[in-house]
C-alpha cells in the first residue's frame, strides 16, 4: 500500500465553512425581479382518462402568465430516469398526458406572478375525468384482464429489451448459472421464504427545486437540484424539442439526493414555462409533493428458495422477484437487474436461478433510491443466509465467511448479467471481507453477546444480535463515463472543472484531494468548480456509488496529462531531459542537477514567455468493471414482546471500500447509510387509502429518524487497496445501506425466535408476528 500526503486524510470539506455560514448556495437561494412561480395540479384519481380540460378561467386570472396541459405541450415520449443514452427505461412519460395513472400524477401547471395566484389558478382549472378501474397489487396487475395502465400506443422501450405494457409488464429478467435444481436436490436442507420490502421516500432535506431563465442569447439556463446535470440537459432538450445547445444546466450546492434527483421531476415543466413566457420561472416542490410526486423505492416481493448442506455449503439459490414500479417505469429494469447482478456475486454458489418481473401499478412512481435493487436482494439473501446457518447449527459468522466470494475469485453472475444485459467477465480485484467480518465481530462482541443473550432470563424485554454481509458493485460497467478539465494559473494553482455532482456527499473535496495528491500540491491550490454544462466537461453524475471511483480515475488521468505538460516546460527551462525531472511539493526538481523550479515560474513561463500555451488538459475515463465494495454489519436489538417495539442498541459496520480518500467523509457515508437504513427498517412507511392516495405525506405523519433516535454506531474502515481504483479507492455511497433490513431482522430473530420477512418492523407488525408464532 502506498503512503499518501493528502489522500487518506480527513481534510475539511471544501464547502463546509460556506454552508455553515448560510451562504446563498442552493438552487432556491437566488431570485429574479420578474420571476414567475409555477405550481402543478395533481391527479386526485389513481387511474383516469381526461376527457377534457378547461383552463380558460385560470388563464383569465390576473397575474397568470401561462397554463400548461396535454393540449398545449408537445407529446414527447421519454423517461425521467437520468441514465446514459439510450436509456434502458421505457419511454412511458409525457410532460402532460390526457391520462393520469396515480394519485399525484401531473394534470396541468400554472405560472403566475406569485405562488398564491398560481395556487388560486389551479383551483380554477376544470378537469373532466373518466375514472378508470385501478390496480394496486403488482401480482393482480399481471393477471389477464387487469386494467392496462399504459394503453397509449406511443409508449415503448428504445433498446431491444422486453416490454409488454398491455400486461402492465415492463421488465423481465432470467438468469441461470450451473444447475439450480440439482443444487437443491443435493442439499440437506431446503429453505423457502417470501420476503417483502416496502415503499419509501428519500427525504432529502432540500426539495426538488428549479429556477430557469433565458440568457441574452435566448438560450434556456436551468439552475436545478440535480444529481445528473448532463442527463438533465439532454432530457430537458428532448422534452422541449430543442437541440442541446439551447439548454444550459447549472448545478449549485444540493441538499441531498439519494437517487431522487437522478430524475427529471421538475425541470421540464419549469423550462417549458420559461420558453413560453420568456421570463424566469421558479418551481420548487412542497414536502407533500416530494413525498407523493417525486420518486420512491421499488417494493419487491421476493420468493427465495435455497439449499444448504450440513457442512455449511450453500448448494443452490433460486430467486423469483416481482418488483412494483408504480405508474411509470424509470429505472424499472435496471433496479431489478441489480437485485441479481450486483447482489448475488457475493455468494460462492455456482447454482443460481433468478427470474424477475417489474410491473406497473396505479401507485407511487418508483425510481432510483440508495440501494438500487441491491438493498432488496440483500434483504432476502441476508435472511436466507441466517436461516440456513441456524438450520445447520452454524454460527452465522462462520457461515458467511465460508460462503462469500474472495479476492481473485469470480462469479458466474458477473458475465451472465449486468444492469442492462449481458455482463462482463471480471474477478474480485480486492476483498477484505474476511477481515471486515473478524474486526466487526470483535468490536461488536459477537461471540460474548450471542452467549449472553442465549442465556438471558425470561421476561418481556428480550435482546438479540444479528449480522449480514453485503457487496455492492459500483458504477454501470462499460457505460458510465467521467471527464475532468484542469488548467494551471500563474501562481501554480489549478482550476478543476468537474461535472461529478456533489449532492452533499463531498466529492468536490475528495476529487480535489485526489488531484492535489497526483500533482503533489496543497489542497488550497485546487479551485474546484462544479457543474455547469457550458463550462465543465461531461460526467455521468452522482449515482451508482460511482463518483469517487470513476471521476477519481478521470481526475488522475487529467493530472497525468498536466504533469506531462509541466515537465515539458520545465525541461525547456532547465535545459534538461524530462526523464531527469520529477514533481515535488508544488515544484519540479531535477534528480541530476538538483535544480528546482516552482509551479508559479513554470506557469508564468508557459503563459507569457516562450512557446506560449495554457497548461491545461481534459481527460476521460469509463468504467471497465463493477468495483466491489464489501461490508459486514452487526446489530444488537432490544425487543419489547408486549408492545412489539424494537430498539437498536448498537450497530457496527466494518467496510472494505479500498483506500478511504477522506476517512471522515467515508465514515459519514456509512453512518448516514446505517441511520437511513434503520429508520427505513423501523418507522418509515407510506400509508395508502383504498383508492391509492397517500395518507401521510408529511414529516409529521411519515416518521424518519432524528438525532435522539440514533443508536450507538461504530464504523470500521478496514485497510484495503483496489488496484483498479484511484489510489486504491472503491465506492462507498450505497453498500452499507443494503444490509440494514436483514441485519435487524436477524437480530430480532435471535432475540425472540420470530422471523420478520416483511418490512418495516413496526411495533404493530412485530407484535402480530409474535402472536402468530404463539398461536401456532
Amino acid at each position, binding site marked *: 500500500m502506498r503512503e499518501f500526503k493528502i489522500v487518506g486524510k480527513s481534510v475539511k470539506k471544501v464547502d463546509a465553512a460556506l454552508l455553515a455560514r448560510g451562504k446563498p448556495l442552493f438552487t432556491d437561494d437566488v431570485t429574479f425581479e420578474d420571476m414567475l412561480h409555477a405550481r402543478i395540479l395533481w391527479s386526485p384519481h389513481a387511474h383516469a382518462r381526461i376527457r377534457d380540460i378547461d383552463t380558460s378561467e385560470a388563464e383569465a386570472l390576473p397575474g397568470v402568465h401561462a397554463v400548461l396541459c396535454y393540449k398545449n405541450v408537445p407529446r414527447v415520449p421519454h423517461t425521467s430516469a437520468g441514465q446514459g443514452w439510450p436509456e434502458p427505461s421505457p419511454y412511458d412519460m409525457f410532460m402532460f398526458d390526457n391520462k393520469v395513472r396515480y394519485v399525484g400524477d401531473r394534470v396541468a401547471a400554472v405560472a403566475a406572478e406569485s405562488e398564491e395566484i398560481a395556487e388560486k389558478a389551479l383551483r380554477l382549472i376544470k378537469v373532466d375525468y373518466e375514472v378508470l378501474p385501478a390496480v394496486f397489487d403488482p401480482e393482480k396487475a399481471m393477471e389477464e384482464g387487469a386494467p392496462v395502465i399504459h394503453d397509449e400506443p406511443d409508449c415503448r422501450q428504445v433498446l431491444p429489451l422486453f416490454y409488454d405494457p398491455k400486461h402492465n409488464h415492463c421488465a423481465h429478467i432470467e438468469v441461470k448459472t450451473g444447475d439450480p435444481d440439482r443444487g437443491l436436490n443435493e442439499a440437506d436442507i431446503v429453505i423457502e421464504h417470501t420476503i417483502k420490502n416496502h415503499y419509501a421516500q428519500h427525504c432529502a432535506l432540500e426539495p426538488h427545486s428549479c429556477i430557469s431563465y433565458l440568457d441574452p442569447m435566448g438560450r434556456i439556463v436551468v439552475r436545478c437540484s440535480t444529481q445528473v446535470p448532463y442527463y438533465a440537459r439532454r432530457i430537458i432538450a428532448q422534452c422541449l424539442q430543442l437541440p442541446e445547445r439551447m439548454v444550459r444546466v447549472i448545478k449549485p450546492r444540493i441538499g441531498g439526493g439519494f437517487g431522487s434527483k437522478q430524475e427529471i421531476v421538475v425541470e421540464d415543466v419549469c423550462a417549458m414555462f420559461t420558453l413560453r413566457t420568456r421570463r424566469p420561472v421558479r418551481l420548487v416542490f412542497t414536502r407533500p409533493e416530494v413525498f407523493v410526486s417525486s420518486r420512491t423505492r421499488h417494493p419487491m416481493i421476493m420468493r427465495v428458495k435455497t439449499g444448504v448442506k450440513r457442512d455449511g455449503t450453500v448448494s443452490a439459490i433460486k430467486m423469483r422477484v416481482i418488483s412494483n414500479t408504480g405508474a411509470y417505469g424509470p429505472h424499472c429494469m435496471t433496479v431489478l437487474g441489480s437485485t441479481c447482478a450486483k447482489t448475488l456475486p457475493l455468494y460462492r454458489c455456482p447454482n443460481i436461478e433468478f427470474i424477475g418481473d417489474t410491473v406497473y401499478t396505479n401507485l407511487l412512481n418508483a425510481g432510483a433510491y440508495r440501494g438500487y435493487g441491491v438493498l432488496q436482494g440483500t434483504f432476502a439473501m441476508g435472511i436466507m443466509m441466517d436461516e440456513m446457518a441456524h438450520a445447520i447449527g452454524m454460527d452465522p459468522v462462520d457461515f458467511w465467511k465460508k460462503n462469500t466470494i474472495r479476492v481473485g475469485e469470480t462469479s458466474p453472475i458477473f458475465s451472465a448479467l449486468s444492469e442492462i444485459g449481458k455482463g462482463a467477465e471480471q474477478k474480485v480485484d480486492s476483498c477484505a471481507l474476511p477481515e471486515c467480518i473478524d474486526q466487526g465481530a470483535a468490536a461488536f462482541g459477537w461471540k460474548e453477546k450471542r452467549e449472553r443473550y442465549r442465556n438471558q432470563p*425470561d*421476561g*418481556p*424485554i428480550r435482546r438479540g444480535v444479528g449480522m449480514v454481509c453485503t457487496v455492492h458493485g459500483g458504477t454501470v460497467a462499460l457505460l458510465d463515463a467521467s471527464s475532468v478539465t484542469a488548467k494551471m494559473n500563474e501562481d501554480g494553482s489549478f482550476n478543476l472543472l468537474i461535472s461529478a455532482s456533489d449532492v452533499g456527499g463531498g466529492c468536490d473535496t475528495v476529487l480535489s484531494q485526489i488531484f492535489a495528491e497526483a500533482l503533489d500540491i496543497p489542497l488550497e491550490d485546487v479551485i474546484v468548480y462544479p457543474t455547469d454544462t457550458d463550462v465543465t466537461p461531461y460526467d455521468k453524475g452522482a449515482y451508482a456509488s460511482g463518483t469517487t471511483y470513476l471521476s477519481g480515475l478521470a481526475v488522475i488521468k487529467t493530472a497525468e496529462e498536466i504533469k506531462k505538460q509541466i515537465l515539458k516546460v520545465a525541461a525547456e527551462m532547465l535545459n534538461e531531459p524530462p526523464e531527469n525531472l520529477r514533481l515535488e511539493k508544488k515544484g519540479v526538481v531535477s534528480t541530476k542537477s538538483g535544480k528546482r523550479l516552482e509551479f508559479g515560474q513554470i506557469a508564468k513561463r508557459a503563459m507569457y514567455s516562450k512557446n506560449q500555451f495554457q497548461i491545461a488538459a481534459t481527460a476521460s475515463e469509463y468504467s471497465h468493471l463493477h468495483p466491489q465494495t464489501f461490508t459486514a454489519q452487526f446489530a444488537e436489538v432490544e425487543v419489547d414482546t*408486549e*408492545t*412489539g*417495539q424494537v430498539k437498536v442498541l448498537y450497530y457496527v459496520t466494518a467496510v472494505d471500500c479500498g483506500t478511504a480518500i477522506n476517512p471522515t467523509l467515508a465514515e459519514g457515508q456509512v453512518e448516514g447509510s446505517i441511520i437511513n437504513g434503520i429508520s427505513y427498517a423501523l*418507522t418509515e412507511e407510506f*400509508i395508502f387509502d383504498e383508492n391509492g392516495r397517500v*395518507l*401521510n405525506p408529511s414529516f*409529521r*405523519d411519515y*416518521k*424518519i*429518524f*432524528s438525532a*435522539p*433516535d440514533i443508536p450507538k454506531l461504530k464504523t470500521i474502515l478496514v485497510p484495503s487497496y483496489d488496484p483498479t481504483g484511484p489510489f486504491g479507492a472503491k465506492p462507498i455511497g450505497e453498500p452499507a445501506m443494503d444490509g440494514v433490513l436483514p441485519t435487524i431482522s436477524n437480530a430480532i430473530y435471535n432475540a425472540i425466535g420470530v422471523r420478520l420477512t416483511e418490512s418495516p418492523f*413496526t*411495533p*404493530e407488525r412485530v*407484535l402480530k408476528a409474535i402472536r402468530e408464532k404463539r398461536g401456532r
Partner: protein
Amino acid sequence: MALLSRYGDKAKLIAGGTDLLVDMKNEKINPQYLISLMKITGLSYIAEEGDVLRIGATTTLRELEESQIIEKRYGLISKAVKCLGTVQIRNMATIGGNICNAVPSADLPPALVALNATLKIVGPNGERTMPLEDFFAGVKKTKLSVGELLKEIIVERPPARSGTAFIKLSRTAEDLAIVNVAVRITLNEDDTCREARIVIGGGVGPTLIRSREAEKLLLGKKMEEELVKRAAEVACTGFSCRPTSIRASPEYKAEVGRVLVKRALLEALKKAGGVVEDDERN
C-alpha cells in the same frame, strides 16, 4: 380581553404557535385575527406555594423541563414534558397551548390530570376555576367560552406515600404518542391503595380518558400484579380510537394500552414504597 370579546370566534389566541401555525399553514384553520399572549407580562411563571404549584399559562415547556422545583417535587410533569417533541418545539410551545389546543395525543394533560390539576380561567365575567379533567370537550374542543382564556394551572403536591409514572409509546422520539399513560398512586400505611389516578391519552378517544372504574378496583387493596393487570384491562376497555389513525390501529392501541397501564402502575407502586411483586423484567 377586550380584543378577544371584540373579535369573538374570528380571532385565535396565539402563544408559542407550534400547533396553531402548523394548522394555519396546512389550511385547517384560517382565523382572521391572531391575538398574541406572549407580550402579556405575568403569565409566565412557576411558583411553589406550600403544597401547591402555580404555573402561568404562557410558561414554555422548556421552562418546565428546566425547573428544579418541578424536577424534584412534580417529577411526573418533568417526565411528560421531556417526551414532548424536540427542544426547538419545547422552546416555543407553552403549557397553556398544550392544554387549550385540546389535541387528544398531547402529553402534558394526562400527567396534569393524574396530579389533580385545576385551571384558573379568566373571562368577561371574572375568574373561575375548573378541574383540568373536566376541561376537554372533544377533539380540539374545550369548555372555554368565547372571550375566556386560561390563566393558570394549579397542581397539588402528591401526598405522602405517593408514586407516579408516565410512559409514552411513539414511533420516534419526537413523534406524537401512540398511547401515553400517567398514573398517581397513594398508599395507606398497610400498603393498600388509598388513591389511584389512571389517565390515558395519545388519541385513545376524542379526549384523554380517566378510568375511575379501574381506579376503584384498586382501592383498599394490595396492588398485586394480577390485580394490577385486571385494572389495566378495565382501564383500556373504554377506548374509542379513530380507525384511520396513521400512527396505529385501534386494536394495537388497546393492546399496548393495557401493557403500559400495567407497567405504569407497577412503577408508581414501587416509587410509592409499596411492595413490588417480582418485576419480570429484571
